[in-house]
């Protein structure tokens, strides 16, 4: 509820800069709800972001926050987590920031299974710079740099980080806010690299160019084109094709990086005695 999370907002920085109808505010709210309901120490919580619309979120969240360089949020976050493993480290990134310029950091952070919670705000476009297509812009959709439709194929970013070694993967949308909050909660509880894809809406730079209507119409589109992952396994494949699967996609147990690192240090300290 809003009254419970108001204390986690930097009220003096509001209203935020995001466009009317932008879903980023909803994703940020889901993050604050998840942090509030899991009861983690807010004084020991660090949120790191890169560059882009999504990455402005660190300016509004009342934790220790770092607004870093383009695509490098995970590199900074890895440093923070290794220096102080007791901190709860979050990374806020966008589809362009996290999967294009920061794509290499993403797969290697996942491979290491370092205990960082990544929330990727996926609005399918580079909104801040004027609507260029990103690696998550679906095939055939229009962007300023794809005036005849995007002929690239999009990443399935959740499958990508799964292949790279992430131990918790979930997906929610700005329409399915409860699912999104639950997924971020799952990410917090997982000791290892956690990845949540938050499918957002960009009515200005993406929706307008692709004739998707107003913000409420884009919300309806999300509602109609999403399927809960549990239901998807029971449905015929033609009903699931092209839909957004929401819910917990993957979970496994694996050794965590900072823990292994501490064990190594302890081993050598013992040897020196």
């Amino acid at each position, binding site marked *: *509820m*809003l*009254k419970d999370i108001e204390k986690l907002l930097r009220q003096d920085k*509001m209203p935020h800069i995001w466009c009317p109808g932008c879903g980023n505010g909803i994703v940020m709210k889901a993050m604050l709800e998840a942090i509030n309901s899991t009861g983690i120490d807010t004084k020991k919580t660090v949120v790191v972001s890169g560059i882009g619309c999504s990455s402005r979120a660190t300016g509004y969240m009342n934790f220790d926050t770092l607004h870093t360089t383009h695509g490098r949020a995970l590199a900074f976050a890895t440093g923070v987590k290794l220096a102080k493993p007791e901190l709860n480290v979050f990374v806020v990134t966008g589809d362009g920031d996290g999967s294009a310029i920061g794509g290499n950091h993403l797969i290697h952070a996942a491979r290491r299974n370092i205990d960082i919670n990544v929330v990727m705000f996926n609005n399918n476009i580079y909104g801040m710079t004027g609507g260029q297509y990103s690696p998550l812009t679906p095939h055939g959709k229009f962007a300023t740099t794809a005036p005849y439709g995007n002929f690239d194929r999009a990443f399935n970013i959740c499958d990508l980080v799964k292949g790279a070694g992430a131990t918790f993967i979930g997906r929610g949308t*700005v329409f399915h806010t409860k699912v999104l909050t639950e997924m971020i909660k799952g990410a917090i509880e997982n000791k290892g690299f956690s990845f949540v894809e938050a499918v957002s809406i960009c009515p200005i730079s993406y929706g307008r160019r692709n004739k998707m209507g*107003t*913000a409420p119409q884009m919300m309806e589109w999300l509602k109609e084109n999403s399927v809960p992952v549990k239901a998807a396994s029971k449905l015929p494949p033609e009903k699931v094709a092209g839909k957004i699967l929401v819910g917990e996609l993957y979970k496994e147990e694996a050794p965590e990086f900072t823990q292994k690192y501490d064990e190594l240090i302890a081993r050598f300290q013992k040897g020196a005695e």
Partner: protein
Amino acid sequence: MAKIVINQKWCKACGICYGLCPKGVLDKDDTGKVVVKNPDACIMCRICEEHCPDYCIKIGG
């Protein structure tokens, strides 16, 4: 009757709240910003509160 608190200063007139409200509680003023039209119809589902990207709506005070 549910207490609906609106912060119009932060509202950007995106229309998500009155677009998603299942009971027609919310409406827009001439600038497109949210106003409470029919507070008695509110069933406290909090769809507007959860989906407002601008943190403008509080249900239940």
